[in-house]
C-alpha cells in the first residue's frame, strides 16, 4: 500500500519512523512539509528523508509543494498531519477534498476539517467508496473510533464522557496535588511543553469541544457543530475549590459529555469521586462510553505524543489495507 504524507512535525515524523522500523507492508511514495516535498513512486528512503529534514529544516525539493503531492503523485492513502486550523480547516481541508475527489483514502490527525466539514468530506468518501479515517483526532493513542465502530458494532451509544484535553488535566492534577493556583499550574504546563504559548483553545475548553463534535458526528448524529456545544473552561477554577472537593473524596476534571437522547453536548469542569474511572492523572486522556448492549466501557491512555499519535494513524492505515486490499496498489 502506497502512502503520501503531508506534514513532518511531531506526528508526521512519528509515523515515518514507525513505518521505517516495522514491517507493515507500507511504502511511502511522497512526503511534504510547509516548504518542500519529495516524490518517488518506487518508495522514498525514510531514513534519508528524516535525516534531511533534521539537517536542513525542510524535507525535499522546494520547487514541489504539498498540493503537487496531493494532485500529482501516486498513492493509495493520503496521510494528512499538517497543523490544525479550527476555523477554516485549511490547508488540510483542500488537501483532503482533492485526495477524496481523486478516489484516494484519507487518514488524518487534523481536527480542523473533520470538525468543520465532516458531512461534506464523508459524503464524498461514501460516494467514491473510499475511507476517511481520523482515529488520531480524538484521544491520541486511545482507539476510540475502532472500539465504537468495530468492537461495539451494533450497539447504540447512550452516552460518551471524556477527559479529552491533556493540558487541562495536567493543570487540574497539579492544582489538586500541590495546591498550586491556576496561574502557577498553567505556567508549569508551559515549562513542561504541555501547553501552547497561547493556551486559550485548551483552557477555555474549545479543543475538547472540537473533539466532542467529532465523536458526536460520528456516533450520535451527523450534523453537530462547535456552536452546539455548551462550553465552560477551567480558567476560573481555584485551588480552594479543588481542596473543598478533596475534603469529600472528590476532585474536579474537565469533562466532555454527549448524551444524544437528552440533547446534551457539554464541556465543563465537573465534580467526580476520586475513585471514578475518569479521574486520571497528568496528561492522560480517558473516555467512558455507555451503550445499550455493552453497558459502560472506559478507555484510558496517552492523549498526545509523536509515536502515540502515530499508533492511531497506523491503526487506520492497516484497517484500510485489510478492508480494501489491493484496490489501487497495482495502478502505476
Amino acid at each position, binding site marked *: 500500500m502506497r502512502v503520501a504524507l503531508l506534514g513532518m512535525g511531531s506526528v508526521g515524523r512519528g509515523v515515518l519512523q514507525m513505518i521505517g522500523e516495522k514491517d507493515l507492508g507500507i511504502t511511502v511514495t511522497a512526503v511534504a512539509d510547509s516548504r518542500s516535498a519529495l516524490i518517488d513512486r518506487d518508495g522514498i528512503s525514510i531514513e534519508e528523508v528524516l535525516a534531511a529534514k533534521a539537517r536542513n529544516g525542510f524535507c525535499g525539493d522546494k520547487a514541489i509543494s504539498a498540493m503537487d503531492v496531493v494532485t500529482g503523485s501516486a498513492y493509495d492513502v493520503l496521510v494528512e498531519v499538517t497543523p490544525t486550523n479550527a476555523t477554516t480547516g485549511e490547508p488540510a481541508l483542500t488537501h483532503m477534498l482533492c485526495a477524496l475527489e481523486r478516489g484516494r483514502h484519507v487518514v488524518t490527525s487534523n481536527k480542523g476539517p473533520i470538525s468543520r466539514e465532516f458531512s461534506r468530506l464523508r459524503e464524498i468518501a461514501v460516494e467514491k467508496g473510499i475511507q476517511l479515517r481520523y482515529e488520531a483526532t480524538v484521544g491520541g493513542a486511545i482507539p476510540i473510533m475502532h472500539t465504537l465502530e468495530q468492537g461495539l458494532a451494533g450497539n447504540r451509544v*447512550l*452516552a460518551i*464522557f471524556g477527559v479529552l484535553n491533556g493540558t487541562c488535566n495536567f493543570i487540574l492534577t497539579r492544582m489538586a496535588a500541590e495546591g498550586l493556583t491556576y496561574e502557577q499550574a498553567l505556567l508549569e504546563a508551559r515549562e513542561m511543553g504541555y501547553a501552547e504559548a497561547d493556551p486559550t483553545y485548551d483552557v477555555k475548553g474549545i479543543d475538547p469541544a472540537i473533539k466532542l463534535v467529532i465523536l458526536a458526528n460520528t456516533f450520535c448524529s451527523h450534523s453537530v457543530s462547535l456552536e452546539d456545544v455548551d462550553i*465552560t473552561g477551567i480558567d*476560573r*477554577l*481555584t485551588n*480552594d*475549590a479543588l*481542596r*473543598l*472537593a478533596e*475534603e*469529600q473524596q*472528590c476532585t*474536579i476534571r474537565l*469533562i466532555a*459529555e454527549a*448524551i444524544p437522547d*437528552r440533547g446534551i453536548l457539554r464541556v*465543563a*469542569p*465537573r*465534580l*467526580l469521586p476520586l475513585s*471514578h474511572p*475518569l479521574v486520571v492523572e497528568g496528561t492522560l486522556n480517558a473516555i467512558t462510553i*455507555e451503550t445499550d448492549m455493552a453497558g*459502560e466501557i472506559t478507555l484510558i491512555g496517552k492523549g498526545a505524543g509523536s509515536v502515540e499519535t502515530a499508533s492511531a494513524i497506523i491503526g487506520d492505515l492497516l484497517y484500510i489495507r485489510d478492508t480494501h486490499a489491493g484496490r489501487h496498489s497495482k495502478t502505476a
Partner: protein
Amino acid sequence: MKLEIKDAPGQLVAALKPISEVGGNIIAVIHQRDEKQRGGFLSVQIVLELPENRLKDLTRLIREQGVNIQRIGHERLLYQKAVMVIGHLIHTDLGDTVDRIDRTGFAEVTELNISMPAISQVSSARLLIKSVNKEDMEQAMAILRRVAKEKEFLLVEPLEEVE
C-alpha cells in the same frame, strides 16, 4: 423499598446485609405476615436512606442473595448533591443565593463550606443540597444555574451516569 423474600430462615438477614455494604441506613423494617402471598413468600417492606448513586449496586447485591425486589419507592429516598460555586459569593449576597434554594420548600442547602481569600478575590464554596426526590433536585439545580448565570459564578456540578 418493598422487598418480596422467601419465607425461609436467614432470608431477611440476607436481604438486609447488602444495605450496610453500600453505606445505607435502615430506618424501618415492616413485616406484612397477614398479606396473602403465593407460594410461601413473605413480604417485607424496608425503609432506608441510601448514599447517592448506590441504588443500582444495592439492587444487584440483594438480587444476588436470591431475594426478589417487588417495588422500589423512590419517594422515600433522600437525594443529595454536592456542588461547587466559585465567584464573588459575598458581594453578591450569599444569603440570597442560599435562600433561593431554601424558599422553594422542596430543596434546601444543608451544608455550606466556604473559603475566602483576600477581599477582592473570588471565593469558593461547597454546597450540599438535599431534596426529597430526583425531580425536586433537578428543579433546585435549574434555579442554582440561573443564579450562577445572574451572579457570574462558575458552577461545578457533579458528573452523573445516565440511568
